[in-house]
């Protein structure tokens, strides 16, 4: 077994070897290295053909028309292009945007920037299971609301928002509906028409493709307009200039093609692994699953181990590559804003570990993880004054802590 065991597939995935092989054909003199925008020779034509094939593969995974796919450098750029592009194009219609507190920073930092530019943003609080209450969404919409952005799947807790239902609230009001699908593409079925989204952000490296490439789906019927954020040459129908990165694009196309073929089998396999991991950990006392367990992508398990601090747990789990919602992993000293938005108390937010499994996770990996956690949680709790107090029957909420 190779260690550390990689259980951080929501952070990034390794490139599938089949994808890497395809990419290598678009780099060297022997391959199709041409500029897809070159119209005057076969090098350009061949590269363009490859790019368009990839565009069709990406479009097919989300049931879109290839003409609705705009290449970007990744989901962060797609989010920026969608939000800033819509806000600036439609600002005379209204200047109000609605989003959710548990969105990725690519959304939240972008809306903060739009606020500085004079837009008004409403940040909705999700329910304690991480899902959005449609009544609260409806109540937040105003005549001057131009855009609603709700992520499809949350990166920390893996919960799946009901985009179709949200679309039914948003669309009749003529409001543009964007979703960040970086964590859902290739994991659960996506049909842009069934979901009613106008704009959808996609990333390759979460789906066994390369880093540095993504796409934005931009609806054509009815047409959604964007103000470009990148100028210079008018590539991608003027929405995103810059020479197309052929090898990255064919990598994303191949990754999305494989995802379309293998998604169902992979999801079924990951569901079994996740169930086994949860079952294996559930005999540890004071363990809490963060986020809805049913409406959740198959590979994600986010758990709080009460009375054990997340960073010290990560240290103890050095044979596992996992991530923590605890403060100390960053310099901010604030625990996960996503878990806080669910109403989790600070202790549980500080004690959370995100396990995300994927294509190359094995049964043995999961069994090893279960054994390791039993051992390490026990050791750290022996060290924990909070665990001792809990075992002595002291209500930790009744203690006057000296906050520092």
């Amino acid at each position, binding site marked *: 077994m190779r260690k550390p065991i990689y259980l951080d597939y929501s952070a990034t995935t390794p490139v599938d070897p089949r994808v890497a092989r395809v990419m290598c054909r678009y780099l060297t003199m022997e391959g199709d290295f041409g500029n897809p925008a070159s119209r005057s020779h076969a090098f350009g034509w061949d590269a363009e053909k490859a790019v368009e094939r990839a565009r069709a593969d990406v479009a097919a995974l989300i049931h879109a028309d290839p003409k609705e796919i705009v290449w970007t450098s990744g989901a962060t750029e797609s989010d920026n292009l969608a939000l800033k592009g819509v806000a600036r194009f439609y600002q005379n219609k209204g200047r109000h945007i609605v989003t959710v507190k548990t969105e990725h920073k690519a959304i939240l930092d972008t809306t903060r920037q739009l606020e500085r530019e004079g837009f008004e943003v409403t940040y909705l609080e999700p329910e304690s299971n991480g899902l959005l209450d449609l009544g609260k969404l409806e109540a937040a919409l105003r005549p001057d609301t131009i855009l609603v952005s709700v992520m499809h799947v949350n990166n920390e807790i893996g919960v799946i928002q009901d985009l179709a239902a949200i679309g039914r609230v948003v669309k009749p009001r003529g409001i543009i509906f964007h979703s960040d699908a970086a964590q859902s593409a290739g994991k659960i079925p996506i049909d842009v028409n069934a979901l009613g989204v106008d704009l959808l952000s996609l990333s390759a490296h979460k789906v066994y493709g390369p880093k540095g490439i993504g796409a934005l789906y931009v609806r054509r019927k009815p047409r959604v307009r964007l103000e470009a954020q990148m100028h210079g040459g008018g590539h991608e129908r003027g929405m995103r200039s810059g020479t197309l990165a052929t090898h990255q694009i064919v990598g994303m196309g191949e990754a999305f093609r494989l995802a379309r073929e293998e998604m169902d089998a992979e999801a079924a396999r990951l569901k079994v692994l996740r169930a086994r991991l949860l079952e294996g950990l559930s005999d540890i006392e004071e363990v809490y699953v963060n986020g809805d367990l049913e409406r959740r992508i198959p590979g994600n398990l986010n758990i709080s181990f009460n009375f054990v601090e997340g960073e010290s747990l990560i240290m103890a789990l050095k044979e596992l590559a996992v991530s923590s919602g605890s403060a100390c992993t960053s310099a901010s000293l604030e625990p996960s804003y996503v878990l806080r938005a669910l109403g989790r108390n600070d202790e549980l937010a500080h004690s959370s570990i995100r396990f995300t499994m994927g294509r190359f996770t094995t049964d043995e990996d999961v069994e090893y993880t279960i054994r390791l956690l039993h051992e390490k949680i026990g050791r750290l709790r022996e060290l*924990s*004054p909070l665990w001792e107090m809990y075992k002595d029957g002291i209500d930790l909420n009744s203690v006057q802590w000296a*906050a520092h």
Partner: protein
Amino acid sequence: MAYGSKVLDHYENPRNVGSFDKADPSIGTGMVGAPACGDVMKLQIRVNDDGVIEEARFKTYGCGSAIASSSLLTEWVRGKTLDEAGKIKNTDIAEELALPPVKIHCSVLAEDAIKAAIADYRKKSGKDESVDAA
């Protein structure tokens, strides 16, 4: 985050983990920090009639640096008088463990913990007046 070798050593092999009976008059207990902030330290000292710390025990909820700071402290205070132990500075701990700037608060907490344990012992033993200004 990469840890220094001394932090890792104390984290992997923490010294003097455990608890004394809080009610014992020869024991001073200091509990500092808050779960909401991500670290809580409990430090206990056993003091003999000469005012010398014979033993120390700790339990810490917190990151590796917090665990290492309190583990190191239990080694340092042993054999020291209360006055000597009260003079241990967080900067000494931070320097010994080579803590990075974001982890300095862990050493501050350890200094607070020994001060709180000494104050608790003095209060219990009725020697409050001997608290020196340092």
